[in-house]
Every structure is written in structure tokens, then in C-alpha cells.
């Protein structure tokens, strides 16, 4: 029983991490239709900021965490301004390929400027200690992760439903032309989307770094790959879909770890991606995608 509870907690923690990243992807996609492959590098920027702080002998955890999140937000805003503004109204393929290009550039910049090898970051180890929760042994990190994701979802919901800018963003995801016509500044909407996306990447970065304890140029690549899959499965551009997809992916991944025999361990990713592909065959546009006909304006 305890084993099952523990695995459920694992699945929730994995899922929470994927959901955080997937939300960051979905919010950008819903507004500008951009499949942001460079999201992983925004996460890595947060990680490298921690390295920089360690080098400056700043070990106050609040400074480290705040700095990493701020760096991720700044990076995300910079990317919007420099790389994605020229392709803002282009077709999705152009945006996707641009994001690919940005991702390659940043990975190689990390490789060139810092190091191709992993750099250890020890300042976040304090986040991880064993706790007993209702008789189940879990890591505090998993609890933090699940709680943060819940808070983020609530916060995002409040922001989107209760503020004017949130309303503008929701409207922009439906009909951007109309939003511009009623006098909302498009630059502000885009900047806000990327800011939220960067914030979520920063939060995800904290948890990834606390678990791994090191950063390398490909830090964000695999999590973002998984988060993409989560987005697509949930329904690309749908925020509830991103959360659902994230948790579903976490559950499948833990189930594969538990159920697959030891000697098939190396095939975990193949099975996970295979199951996801089958979900896509069942619902080609994702589980929670809105029902639209091709040719609809929205």
C-alpha cells in the first residue's frame, strides 16, 4: 500500500514538473501559435544564473532562487523581442523553425562560454529532505513541486479571468486582429505571454536544478521535449490541456518505470512516446482541444 502511495506521489511530482513547463509552452502557443522549442534554453539560463551566483559567493537561497527566476523571465522577454518578433505573424512552421534555430544557438553558446560538461550547483540541496506525509515517506521536493504547480494554476486562472490584461490575452488567443482593433497594444500582450512563460520556466528550473544538482547545455532539452508531448496530448494551446497532459505523462512515465521489467529500462522513453502517439491517433488534436472545423476563423 505504501509502495503504491509512494509511486502515486512520484507520478504527481513528475506530472507537476511537466505541467509547469507545458503551461509555459501553451500560453505562448495559444497567443501567437509559436511552438517554442527554445523554452528549454530559458530553463538552462536559470540554471547557469545559479552557477554565476555560486561563483559570486552569493548563497542566500532567496537571492539564488529569485535571481534564477528573474534571469529566466528576462531571457524569455529578450527572445520575444529579438528572435520571435520578426516571425510574429508568420505561419506556424516558420515560427517553429525559428525557435529551433534559437535553441541550437543558445545550446552552443552555453557550450562555448561555460563548458560542454555539467557544472555542479549545490545551493539548492537544502530544498530536499525526507518527510513523512500521512504515513508515506516522500521527498519534500515532491511536495514543493506539487504545491507550487497548484498555486501556479490558481494564480494563472485568477490572472486570466480577473485582470484586464488577462482578458486581453484570452481574447487574443481567439482572435488577435479583433483585440488589436479595440485598442489593446499587441506588444504588451505578447510581452506578457512571454513573461508568464519565462516565470514558469524559472520555477521549473528551480525544481529541476534541486533534483539534478548540476547544469549542462542540454539541461532543458529533454524536459521540454516531454512537455511538448504533454501539450500536444492535452490539446495544443489549451491551458487545461497542458496541465492534464503533463500529469498524464507523469503518470505514464512512473507506470512504465514500475511495470517494465528491469532489462527493458532503457526502452522507457520509447514506450512513453509510443503510448502518447497512440493517444494522438485516438484524438488527433489532443484530448481537450476545442472542436473547430478547418476553415473556421477561430
Amino acid at each position: 500500500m505504501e509502495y503504491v502511495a509512494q509511486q502515486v506521489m512520484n507520478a504527481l511530482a513528475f506530472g507537476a514538473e511537466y505541467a509547469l513547463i507545458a503551461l509555459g509552452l501553451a500560453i505562448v502557443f495559444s497567443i501567437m501559435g509559436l511552438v517554442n522549442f527554445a523554452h528549454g534554453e530559458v530553463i538552462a539560463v536559470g540554471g547557469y544564473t545559479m552557477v554565476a551566483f555560486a561563483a559570486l559567493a552569493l548563497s542566500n537561497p532567496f537571492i539564488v532562487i529569485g535571481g534564477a527566476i528573474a534571469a529566466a523571465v528576462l531571457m524569455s522577454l529578450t527572445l520575444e523581442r529579438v528572435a520571435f518578433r520578426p516571425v510574429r505573424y508568420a505561419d506556424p512552421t516558420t515560427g517553429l523553425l525559428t525557435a529551433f534555430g534559437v535553441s541550437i544557438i543558445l545550446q552552443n553558446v552555453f557550450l562555448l562560454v561555460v563548458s560542454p560538461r555539467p557544472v555542479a550547483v549545490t545551493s539548492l540541496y537544502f530544498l530536499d529532505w525526507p518527510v513523512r506525509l500521512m504515513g508515506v515517506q516522500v521527498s519534500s521536493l515532491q511536495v514543493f513541486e506539487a504545491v507550487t504547480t497548484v498555486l501556479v494554476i490558481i494564480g494563472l486562472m485568477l490572472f486570466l479571468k480577473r485582470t484586464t490584461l488577462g482578458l486581453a490575452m484570452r481574447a487574443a488567443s481567439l482572435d488577435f486582429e479583433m483585440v488589436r482593433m479595440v485598442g489593446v497594444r499587441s506588444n504588451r500582450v505578447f510581452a506578457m505571454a512571454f513573461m508568464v512563460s519565462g516565470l514558469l520556466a524559472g520555477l521549473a528550473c528551480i525544481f529541476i536544478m534541486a533534483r539534478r544538482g548540476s547544469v549542462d547545455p542540454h539541461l532543458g532539452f529533454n524536459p521540454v521535449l516531454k512537455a511538448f508531448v504533454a501539450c500536444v496530448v492535452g490539446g495544443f494551446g489549451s491551458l487545461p490541456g497542458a496541465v492534464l497532459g503533463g500529469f498524464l505523462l507523469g503518470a505514464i512515465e512512473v507506470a512504465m518505470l514500475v511495470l517494465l521489467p528491469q532489462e527493458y529500462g532503457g526502452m522507457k522513453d520509447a514506450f512513453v512516446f509510443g503510448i502518447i502517439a497512440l493517444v494522438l491517433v485516438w484524438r488527433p488534436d489532443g484530448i481537450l482541444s476545442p472542436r473547430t472545423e478547418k476553415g473556421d476563423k477561430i
Partner: protein
Amino acid sequence: MILNPSQKRGLVGAAILAAVLIAIGLIVTYFGSRYQLRLVYSAFVNLLVVLAMQVFMGNARLTNLSHSAFMGIGAYVAAICVTPVTVKAISLPDAPWGLNTFSLDPVSSAVLAIVITAVLALIIGLFVVRLTGSGVTIFSLAVLVIVHSVFLYRTDIFKGNQAFFGIPQVFSLTSIVVLSVIVVFLVRLFRESRWGIQLRACADDEVGAAAMGVNIRRLRLIAWVLSAVLLAVAGIAYAFFLGTISARPFYFNHVFLTLAMLILGGMRTVTGAVLGTLLISFGLECVRWLETGPVLLGVDLPEVLGLSGIALGVVIVLTMALRPGGIMGDYEIEDFLLKGQE
């Protein structure tokens, strides 16, 4: 068979491209060193890959990222079939299904590789054609990851990241030049064929094309399988010359490299595919030379690892920002020489 005017123009264009490729082949054969010959050979392999990508991405305009996986499947099947039993006894001592107890001649190995890749592509393609836009991209990414983890995991068949060695050298530079000339004609004729035109119409206006009676899914499936077959050919050419293969060259780095080639030249045209491959293959060699920190005009440049990656990324980003259609856009090479559009 009667060709319509645009198909005739297509033949002229393909002939011009073929002439360029043959010229490059001749120059390297007579003046190139062994090392340069190898470089040009791998550039031609990438050309085959990029042409194969053009068939699906250029006509259906859906981004496919699994091309390196299909190339890998073709390369591995051909390599496993053609390698002599004596070598396989050493390299694959515990291969299942008696894979190390037989060997075929190069032609049947190649045919088998193409057939197996085509069947796999057909099965995967049945799923791909149900998806749209970004769904195709992510699905193809999943295919890439799955195929790669199978390569890595079944070390008893594929040897994972270790080299699968002892493949006899069947191909020479001449064979690959001939092969690319054939593929250039094939790809160009596909673009101008009824299927190609209908596919491009779907990409421009899916609802409109469907309303005119175009069977979109069937056409995409045809292009997908044809693309995979050509990718298998590229993989076979790769394995038949280099003598050793491993899983690494069929993963993300190669995906990015060939994608950059296709994008720079312009994925909509065959001329673009050829031009992009030539430019990036040549440009990347120069960047790699800079990367090692050479002495230039008396200045000792530092070693900069990762420069080639940055250069590739910059090429992609700049092309997308300045000329989303690539250098060639919608122009084929003969449009500069012959009068009148299509």
C-alpha cells in the same frame, strides 16, 4: 507519356541541377584529395536526405523531424544484410533470429532495406496523415526518439553508440553522383506531377483543395512513404561507403543540420534543396576550420568549440526572419533561364 509544359520545364531544371552535381563530382574525382572526397561524399549523402525531405516537407508543408530515423533504419538493415558472416560473428555475437548467420549481396540488401523502411513508413504514415500542423511535428519527434532508443537499447542487433563495423565498401563517389542525379529528376518530377500539384494545393488551402475532391490523406501518405524510401536510399549510400555506422549520426544533430540545409535553400523547390545543401556543406567546412583555431593572416585565432552549431542556428533564424521561403522562395533554377512562369 505526354508531359505538360511545367513538367517539361521541370526536366530542364533537373537537368541543370544534375549538370552542376556531375561537375562537382568530376572536379573532386580529378583534383580532390582522399579526405576531400570523403567530405564531398557525405555532402552528397546529405543532399539525398534533403531531397527526400523536400518531397514531404516541401510539397505537403508539414514539418517532419523523423527523417534521420528512417535514414538510420535503411542504413542498419542494409548494413546487417550485406556484412559478411565472418565479420558479424565478431561484431554481433549474440544477435537474435539468426541475423549473424546469413549475408546477402549488396543489391538484395539494398532492396530489402528499402522495402522494410517503406513498410515501417507506411504503418507510421497511416497515423501521421491523421494529424495536422504542429501535431505532425511532435509526432515525428516521438518517432525519432522511439527509433533512436531502439537503436541504443538493442545493442545485440545495432550495437548502440558503438560502431557497427565491417560493412564492405560497395559505393564510390561515382555511384552516389549517379544516384543523386536520378533522385533529383525523381523529386522534381514528383513536384510537377498531379500528386505534387494537388499536395501543394492542400498546403495552400486545405479546405479548398478538399472541396475540389483532393484526397489529402492519401496524397500525404504517398509523399511520406516516397520520402522514407529516398531516405532509406540515403542511409544505404551512407553505410555502403563509410564502412561503419552507429546510432549517433541518426539523431538530433543530423536532424538540425539537414533541416538548416533545406530551410536555407528554400523547402518549396528542388533547386532550393540542392542550393541549401551545397551552401551549408561548404560553409560548415569553413566554420569547422575556424573552430579549430587556425592562424589567419598572422593572427592566432583561439579554439572555439560550438561555433558550427551557432552558425547553423544563426542561418536558420536569419533565413526565417528575412526570407521565410528560403533563398529560392518559389523559383526553380530554370525560371531564371526560360521565359514565362509555368
